[in-house]
Structure formats: structure tokens, C-alpha cells
């Protein structure tokens, strides 16, 4: 929506507009009978029992690890080794130490064993999940041997689109794993309206994706072909999206510098 989407300001506007569109889209989706789903109550029961068993083990088991201690250690590792300036060596240490914490977190026992509102139970339940998430961050950062946005590697300061223009997908495949399985989803430069270029700040020091010059040339050609047509025609050529919107959000919007037909 904003193209150069940075922190705070831009993403607030983006959240509001996206929320409006997505909410409508989901409501429309649920409205269509072909999207009905059939879930057996047995399946729901199974999931419930699975979670309940985890809580029971925390409360009733005679395990010994202290959830608050694990949380503090995790925070310290993340601050010291997975912070603003990152380095392969530090990240590798962090991944190693976090794995050890994850193993220990499977042995958490509570000192305060009340059911219902119980702050220690809450910490215990959450810290196990936090450690998994911390490992997704640290392990993903260790594998990503480039710098991109908020991920800055001192040992790989350059952005590398050729190798890393792809999305990290982390999956926990089994309950006993201590590392997530990472897969990568390639982004298709040839379908982009604005191929990744210089970000407008810092040195122009990055490695282009091989498709970037091709797509840039293609876009230039489209612009030439359209010969000064308005931005809507260009959008339609480069990245048509209107059909994806809920019906009532299609069509043009008035802007201060772009009055609508017949209202000039």
C-alpha cells in the first residue's frame, strides 16, 4: 500500500485499511456455502485434551525447572546475541543455548499449583512457546547470510537479492524437535509492480536479483506502450488487484489532487 513500509506511521494506516478490507473479505468468505467446513466434535475434543494434558503435567508433575528462570535466561540470550548488530558466531551460540533452554522447558514444574488464575502457570505455558519462537528468530537469522531491513549481520553487511529474496518459513514438525525446520518461499520479481531496488538511504551496495533488470526493463516498456495513460491503466497492466477486493471497495477514490469525474 505504501511501498516503502517502515515502522510506526505507515504501518498504522496500513493496518486500518487492511483491517477494513480483510474483515469484509472474511465475512464474504464465511457467507458462501461452498466454504462451509465440517469439523467433528471428536477432533475438537482431542485438541482440548492435548492442551489439558500439558497443563496437568505442569501442575501435577513433579518436575523441577523454574519457568521464571528460563524466561530470564531466554531474554538475556536474545538481548546479547540476537540483537540489533548480529554475527554468525553469536547467533550460533544463541541457537545452541536456546535449544538447551527448550529442552529444560520440557521439564518445568510449578511451585504454585492452583488451577484457574495462576501467574506461574501462565508463565510456564507461555515460556515453552516463547522459546520456540525465539529459536525461529535466532535460527532463521543464523541461516540468512545477508543484511535486510532490521536484520543486520556484521559478517554479511550486504543485501543479497540473488540469494535471499525469499521468505523464511519455520515449522515445528515434532514435539521432540529442538530446532524448527526451515523452508524458503521464493518471491517472483517478474510479477512485482516495483522490483526491489535501492532503498533510498545508505550506500548503494547490494546484490540484485537476476530478474530485477529484466523486470525493470519490462516496466519501462509498459510505460512507453501506455504512452502517458493515467496511473490506473498502469496499475492494471503491471499488477491488477481490483478483482481481489470485496465488491464495495472497488472503484476509484477521490483524492485532494484527483477529483472524481463530474465534480471538478
Amino acid at each position, binding site marked *: 500500500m505504501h511501498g516503502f513500509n517502515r515502522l510506526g506511521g505507515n504501518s498504522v494506516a496500513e493496518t486500518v485499511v487492511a483491517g477494513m478490507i480483510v474483515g469484509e473479505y472474511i465475512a464474504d468468505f464465511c457467507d458462501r456455502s461452498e466454504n462451509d467446513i465440517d469439523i467433528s466434535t471428536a477432533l475438537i475434543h482431542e485438541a482440548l485434551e492435548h492442551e489439558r494434558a500439558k497443563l496437568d503435567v505442569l501442575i501435577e508433575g513433579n518436575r523441577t525447572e523454574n519457568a521464571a528462570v528460563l524466561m530470564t535466561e531466554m531474554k538475556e540470550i536474545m538481548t546479547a546475541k540476537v540483537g540489533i548488530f548480529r554475527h554468525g558466531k553469536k547467533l550460533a551460540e544463541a541457537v545452541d543455548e536456546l535449544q538447551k533452554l527448550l529442552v529444560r522447558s520440557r521439564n518445568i514444574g510449578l511451585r504454585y499449583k492452583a488451577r484457574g*488464575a*495462576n501467574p506461574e502457570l501462565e508463565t510456564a505455558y507461555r515460556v515453552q512457546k516463547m522459546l520456540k519462537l525465539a529459536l525461529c528468530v535466532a535460527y532463521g537469522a543464523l541461516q540468512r547470510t545477508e543484511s535486510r531491513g532490521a536484520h543486520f549481520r556484521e559478517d554479511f553487511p550486504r543485501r543479497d537479492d540473488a540469494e535471499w529474496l525469499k521468505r523464511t518459513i519455520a515449522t515445528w514438525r515434532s514435539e521432540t524437535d529442538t530446532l524448527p525446520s526451515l523452508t524458503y518461499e521464493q518471491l517472483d520479481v517478474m510479477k512485482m509492480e516495483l522490483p526491489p531496488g535501492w532503498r533510498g538511504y545508505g550506500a548503494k551496495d547490494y546484490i540484485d536479483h537476476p530478474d530485477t533488470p529484466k523486470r525493470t526493463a519490462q516496466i519501462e516498456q509498459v510505460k512507453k506502450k501506455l504512452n502517458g495513460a493515467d496511473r490506473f491503466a498502469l496499475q492494471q497492466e503491471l499488477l491488477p488487484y481490483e478483482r481481489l477486493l470485496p465488491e464495495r471497495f472497488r472503484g476509484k477514490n477521490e483524492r485532494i489532487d484527483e477529483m*472524481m469525474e463530474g465534480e471538478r
Partner: protein
Amino acid sequence: MKNENHTLRQLKISVLRFNPQEPGSAPRMQTYEIEEADGMTLFIALNEIREKQDPSLHFDFVCRAGICGSCGMMINGRPTLACRTLTKDLDSEISLAPLPVFELIADLSVNTGKWMRHMSERLETWVHLNGDKIDLTKPEERMEPELAEKIYELDRCIECGCCIAGCGTVRMREDFVGAVGLNKIARFRLDPRDKRNDDDFYELIGEDNGVFGCMSLLGCHDVCPKKLPLATQIAFLRRKMAAVGWK
């Protein structure tokens, strides 16, 4: 960094403990001792107590920066936010109790959300379009920056509940909407997008559980952690509502 001349105190923090969910639990004071640290807030102190001494201690925090409104509690008898209270501003013996009026969850944790939701639904604290349609293809209606500022000033309320805990009228009238509720009406009354007029607002607050119940004790105004001009707003609303009543 430790200051050589500055000796760190040993704090004695007494907490009113009671867990209605726990069979046999009775209200009692329990005292914890911890060593003060530089820049320590009650948020830090309570977390340290829970982590190192007593995992069963209930209290609420989310943002630890005075914007979520979760950590309102009675600190030495005065309702305020624990995350914005530095221990260095207090004596070494500190007493903590849950906010009164609200439903007690346990120890220092109370359910302000339930109370606030009830108040919100009763006062309909949202923009009423009254049949006006919003045309999404048109730019938003413009607002004078001065007016936007005035609305924003009142919108800073975080619903922490301190004004309710510090209110005398609430003790006498269980259904009193309190400064938090009246402030919201003042906020929507300013908003040109809300099409309700003073007759509509009179239906909501023109009674003893509304603006006429306030005894002007100014407790709300004194304790508000966000320094909202609550007494001023209530006095102004009372005048406006009285004018409707006399018609």
C-alpha cells in the same frame, strides 16, 4: 551503575492478599523484603518478588509504561499506576492493596474490564452516526487541529480505574458512571462525527447516577495518572445538562 554515596535500601512491601478462588483463603497482609535497585519501579519490584520469592502473588501488568491501564492499585492508600511509581519516591515500608469497587480476581488483580464494559455499553461510548452514511470514496471530513487536540486530550484516558477507586460517590451509588464515564461523554460531545445532541446526552447522564450524582470531592481529578482535567469536564457537563433539564 552504583552510586558510592547512595546506600540501597531494604524495602518492606506489604500486600493485601486474598484469593476468592482458593478454598480457605482469608484476607491478610503479607510482607516481602527486597533490596531496592536504582530506578526501581513497583512493576520491577513486584516482578522480582514473584520470580524469586512467591510465584503465587497475583498482580497485572502489560505495557509497563503507563499506557495500558492494567496496573492500577492502592499504593499507600492512594490509587495509582504501579509501573509509573518509583520506589525512591516512597518510604521503605510500602503498603499495596487492590483497587476497591472492581471485582477482585486475586491479591492485587482486579477485573476493571468488566466494569468498564458495563459503563461503555450503558453510555454508548462510540460515535453515533444517526443515519449518516460514510462515503468511502470521498476524503474524510476535515477537522480543525484545535478541535482534534481537544478531543485527543480527553481520549488519553486509559481506563485504569483509579478515578473510580478514588471516588466518594461510587461508594454511595453503585451504578455511578464515574469520572471515566463522564469524561467519555465529554469526548463524544466534542466530536462533530457524533450526531447526538445534548438532549440525547441528557438521557444518558442527566440523573444521580450520572453527572448530577457527583459531589465534587475532586478525588478523581487528584489521582488521575494521566492528569486528565476531570473536575473541569464534569463541571462543564453539569452546566450543559442542567440547561437541558430546565427547558
